[in-house]
């Protein structure tokens, strides 16, 4: 009798198969002449893996610390267009049968 808790989830098995197929394509078909860097073995695997890390680092490590602001950063500016308060901007009619 198999211990169910020790089984590998099917999604991991499928994902492993996808990776195997991805690597397996290197050995299928005519070999590509090595003219460019992307003709190297497993280049796209490495590029995909590193690309994901580099973009995450670029976003979270460089852009985010410098440019993150609270969600209400522009609230004072937007409040000027709030027709529920005193404002020279004319308000459109209230919502009817519309959607949010």
């Amino acid at each position, binding site marked *: 009798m198999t211990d169910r808790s020790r089984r590998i989830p099917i999604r991991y098995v499928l*994902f492993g198969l*996808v*990776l195997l*197929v*991805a*690597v397996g*394509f*290197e050995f*299928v*078909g005519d070999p590509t002449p090595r003219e*460019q*860097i*992307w003709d190297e073995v*497993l*280049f*796209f*695997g*490495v*590029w*995909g*893996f*590193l*690309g*994901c*890390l*580099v*973009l*995450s680092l*670029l*976003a*979270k490590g460089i*852009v*985010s610390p410098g*440019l*993150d*602001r*609270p*969600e209400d*950063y*522009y609230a*004072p*500016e*937007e*409040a*000027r*267009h*709030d*027709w*529920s308060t005193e404002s*020279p*901007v004319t*308000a*459109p*009619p209230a*919502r*009817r*049968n*519309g*959607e*949010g």
Partner: protein
Amino acid sequence: MFGSIPPGLFFVALALVLPFLPRQSRAWAFLVAPVLSLVHLSGLETGTTATWQLATFELEPLRVDRLANVFGWILSIITLLGGIFALHLKDTSQQVAALLYAGSALGVVYAGDLFTLFFFWEIMAFGSAWLIWARRTPEAYAAGLRYIYVHLFGGAVLLGGILWQMAETGSLRFEAFDLDGPGILILVGFFLNAAAVPLHAWIADAYPRATITGAVFMSALTSKTAVYTLARGFPGWEVVMWVGVIMAVYGVTYAILSNDMRRVLAYHIVSQVGFMVAGIGIGTEYTLNGASAHAFTNILEKSLLFMATGAIIHATGVSRMSHLGGLYKKLPVLFWLYMIPALSISSAPFLGGFLSKPMTISGAEYATVPSVVLLMHLASVGTLLSVGLKLPYFTWFTKPRGLAEGEERTVAPIPWNMYAAIGLGGAGLIFLGLWRWPLYNLLPYEVVFDPYETKNLKKAFQLIGFATLAFLVIAARLKPKPKIQLDFEWFYRAPSALVWKWVVHPVVGVFVWAERVSWELARALVPVGFDPVSVIRSGRPGPTSPSGETASTGFRVTMTAMVMIAALAFAIILFWFVLLR
């Protein structure tokens, strides 16, 4: 069947008629225009034209060729799907705005001259702005104003370029331009609508604020119509290629960071349009085919993604990933419907997107420097990371966020028509992935790219497989935060406080002062008119009554006398000027 009628006219005509139809039938009647357009396009032969004479100019509201047809078909298809998605909607103003918007987009695509193009270009701006305002929240109202200001600015630049072009060449024909004075102005006008960096900030500002159905139409129409105009007007310019590459990487970087689901998708539009713009800039038949095919599949994919995220907002009322999570138990079908366009847009094999973006990149491999190709592959990884992995992972999986301890998320039922539209579009992507010839036969040039070659399958499997592996390693670090990221919009939103203080307030102040003076003057003159005799005799009005009003001495001027005096004065002036001079 319909002769040489511009397809956009079906939409505009229906927009004029729709408000007079019975209220319950309007949402269904909306579908008539795209259906008629598709029937018309199926019989419209390449080379068909229609001309109208306006003063000394010959306008060409219909010019059918293969490039225009790629966009004409997909814009009609997506308006039909958008109409199905919005069948539950009872807001006539949104339906009319969407029809005008879609009709104008088709008007731009089939315009053979720059005047017709500009006319429809501006209607598109107002139609789409209404789809933001229709949400009727203060934030949407402000975003709609910013959107229309930005697009009116872009329209003014475009008009300047058109007039300059006309003055220099004497022609209004919409053909490929040179990058000289007028060409640069026209390019900037097109770039703004294509959300080219740094003219792109409006897209991430406006699309998350639009109505659920409005954002679906907006994601499909404005930027993709601009892609068409760039493909027609500026193929083969290196500067266009580099702008496209920058857009592709820039867009995904912000998409990875964004918290609002529709903001993720909006930034991702910048990236995907970047691929198309880069393909146009490279300018070979191969990459122009790739850009056109990518526009076709991307319009479908992006609309479906906006539909799926819109359905989540409809069900939960929440659009920020920092306040979602754990939705798979509640909305499993929607997850799978979302994943079809999400995988397709990541160029997964056997889906529509696999036919198009790899074609552009493959074309780039033969025609440009390796750095462009590598950056495009990097942006492609970013697509998978932001839209294919991060958004669904933190929306449908992970622990629910934004709820009190022990609170269960309530989910409102999603209308059947929303599921139907996303399902139909998803089926279309699977169909294209398995049978590519309906798309490839539509493209402007003969297709030499075979997506199912071993090397293309290898690229796709390796990029997707190993990028997913990397995501699984770092997923916890990508958890969405309740933050926004400053972008180029800061340059016009932050100084707006100063503009408000130094420009708007003084102008409003003048109006307020003028109004106050008018009221004071009226208040002073009323007693004079009420009792002019006392004023003449004593220089002041007569005694007041107990109620506070000026008591008349009986010499009050009647209205008849006033009119007679005015008429007499007018007659004297007329007599003086006309007869005596």
